[in-house]
């Protein structure tokens, strides 16, 4: 409730009859404020403290000693809406536009993101074999060549309408093909067996 509506409520209570006053006199219980909110990028400073910990300071407010940076929309809007969490995963706040962070803070946040995510991008499929329900992949990724096994097409492979294919292996390690239509012809042909 805004300040204005609160004021109106109290005025209304003062001018009401007794019967109404009983109803109006109930204390208005405000829902507790959320513990976190959007953070103003201009007031936020992020830096590595020299002991391997990322520190966050909201100017004129508080400082957090050991934070992590997490993307709210890792696939759809990876470059905006970065959340800060503490070590136990509790949310500190969300930065809507990290590009407005100062240079040092942005570099520190990007390094924290790089540490947090390991999502190899598949650039080519060398071999794809489906046997007894499991799918065996040999692929090239931006992190080097890799062989992995997905447990079944339904469980391990998800295709989005925009051509993105997300794969998860049997140990829940993840891989992504940003747009399968942009892969080479052989990779597409192999992938087409399971899509």
């Amino acid at each position, binding site marked *: 409730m805004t300040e204005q509506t609160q004021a109106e409520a109290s005025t209304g209570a003062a001018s009401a009859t007794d019967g109404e006053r009983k109803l109006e006199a*109930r204390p208005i*219980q405000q*829902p*507790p404020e959320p513990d976190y909110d959007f953070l103003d990028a201009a007031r936020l400073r992020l830096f590595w403290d*020299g*002991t*391997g*910990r990322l520190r966050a300071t909201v100017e004129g407010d508080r400082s957090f000693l050991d934070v992590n940076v997490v993307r709210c929309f*890792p696939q759809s809007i990876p470059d905006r809406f970065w959340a800060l969490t503490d070590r136990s995963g509790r949310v500190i706040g969300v930065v809507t536009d990290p590009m407005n962070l100062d240079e040092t803070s942005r570099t520190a946040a990007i390094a924290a993101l*790089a*540490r*947090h*995510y*390991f*999502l*190899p991008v598949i650039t080519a499929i060398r071999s794809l074999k*489906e*046997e*007894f*329900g*499991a799918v*065996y992949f040999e692929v090239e*990724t931006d*992190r*080097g*060549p*890799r062989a992995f*096994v997905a*447990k079944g*097409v*339904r469980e391990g492979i998800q295709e989005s*309408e925009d051509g993105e294919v997300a794969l998860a*292996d*049997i*140990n*829940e*390690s*993840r891989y992504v093909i940003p747009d399968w239509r942009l892969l080479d012809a052989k990779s597409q042909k192999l992938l087409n*067996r*399971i899509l």
Partner: protein
Amino acid sequence: MCATASRKVPPDAVRATVEEKCAPGEPILLWQKTDIGTDGTFREQWLAITSAHLVVVEPDGEAPRVAVSMPLGSIRKVDAVSRIGYIALEVDSDGRRQDVVRATNSRAGALHQIARAMNERDKHGGSPEFTLEEEEEQFCPKCGRLLPEKGSFCPSCLKRTTVLVRVWRYMRPHWPKALVMTMLTSLAAVVAIAPPYLTKVLVDDVLTTQGRPALLLPLVLALAGLQAVTTVFRIIQARIAAWLGSRIMHDVRFDLYQSIQALTFRRFDRTQVGTLMSRLLNDTDRLNYMLIDLGGWLAPTVVQMLGILIVLLTMDWFLAVFMLLPVPFFIMGMTWFHTMIHRIFHRHWLRRDNMSDVASDSLTGLRVVKAFAQEPREISKFSERSYSVFRVATQQEQAFATYFPLLELLIMSGTFLVWYFGGRLVLGEVPWHGRITLGTLMAFLGYMGMFYGPLHWITMFSNHINQAITSAQRLFEIIDAEQEVYDDPKAAKLPDLQGRVEFRGVRFGYRKDKEVLKDVSLSVEPGEMIGLVGRSGVGKTTMTNLICRFYDVDEGAILVDGVDLRKISIAQLRKRIGIVPQESFLFSGTIAENISYASPDTTPEDIIRASIAANALGFILRQPDGYDTRVGGSAGRLSAGEKQRIAIARAILHNPRILILDEATSSVDTETEDQIQTALRRLVKGRTTFAIAHRLSTLKYSNRLVVLDDGKVAEMGTHDELIEKNGVYKRLVDMQSKLSAVTALDG
């Protein structure tokens, strides 16, 4: 130098590099291979922990590189940190934190165990003690294929004969029927071969100008008789096969269900109920088809085909060669066709599944769809999926329409060859080969039809048999799975259980890499009521699961009346434990049957007495059929509170010494809760009780409250003592007070 814990042996160069970093004679306690470099690329690294150092080496051919080296003395804390897509071993060394190794999640269990051993090294004189448990294999050690479940069998390396022998063992008690079936099969096969030969006699000796017309009727009668005999044999043989198949299935299902009931909870966690149901229904069905088809159709057909082949080769080997000529090509073609069509089938199945997912989503949530006016969006989504089904369905049907006739044509080429060369033999145009009669050619063509007919079914059958054998093995896997030992002869019997329960340094996790209880110690006197308090997931239900011995502790012990649970007969123990769960489960049956579920021989008086104590009599009598009202499954419309009171009556009747109330009042309104609370107070009287409740007010009658935090007992005492302590419990109470104030106003 001795290595005590290792999952893989490192290359010599890596070992030498580590040894260089250590003092002479310094033992290497652990080797662990990882698969992501700290630069974020896939690469092999080796973590070595010696008695004094932690070293990480990156093998780079002959000259491995030391990535990290630090004395153990500088390490304050080690954490296995799960991040998105990988896991890291994070070390706090002299106040500075760094990832020493990173790995894909396949190494998560190992890294967690390493972190724990490192953090507990003070207990072992400063040197970590690694007892890495061998994780169950994910891949077949023989062929490297993924196993359907960890530690399970490989469908590819499966010894088919072993499985068939085991299926055969089920047939042994019914051997007389099996023998009759085999004899009839062979006889039917032999008899079925005769008619084309009689056709030959008919054409050559009767239907010619010099023939003997008197033979016509006897020959036709013989043909009809043979056909009738074959038919009778086949009917009897197929009926026996059906009986045998179904009977064996009954025996297998019985063994399977018995085993499922006795499965350990760990195994249950690993195998979902859906999977078990699928084994009980689909796998047994598949095996049944094989037994019936194998016994009823395949076996006689193969015997008959072999017989025909022998007859054809004896009749005329020259023509037989032409008949056999297209067979290998046909088999190759069919195999290729099956592989190809299987892939299309699979795609079809996937897309249809996707389509029904969309339909089921939007139909189930129709109110929401309509309320938000999203019909056009749902229609377009469905249309897109339906179109993709249309495309693959067309592809599938067109493949059938194209390749099947082509394969037919291929096999028919044998017939054309036999017509041509056989015709020339009849006309005497092949000088080096004697003349044959028209009857011989006709008989030959007849046999050919009998031989070619089942050929393409047989090529498909190998696939079916493989599937059935895999199904059989899946069934045997459950039948052979680790089971709870109900009646261990060495187990202690506890006829007069007092109900004293003690947790002694209990550690436990459902997964090896995630401990839920970390060193829990607690002593409960007989008849005492303990309220277990703490956040969700802190291990309250886990504690009660351990008391029931649904799982065994990883470390430490739980004692009942001073005896380790593992030394008590499970059946005895559970007879003395009662549970009232959050969601009461009623079995299909009457209310009376449900109340007396654990004590079937009880009297109606006892049932009524228990219902009175459970505050249940009133609503039971409001049902038109009283105690005979059918509930559970699709029958009955009892509310959550009513079901709960039936469960309480069941527990009262069971008369347990140890009672577990797991959120017993969380799914009911305040008024019903009050009635249930009264019933519960009657129930807990004189019994050792462990009660879990989110609403802390429901625990007000507990003798003691045990507050769990981070897998340990954080606080213990009465409500007042804990409030005074101003710790975890006080915080929980404050939070609930705020919440209930808001709820009261909203309500």
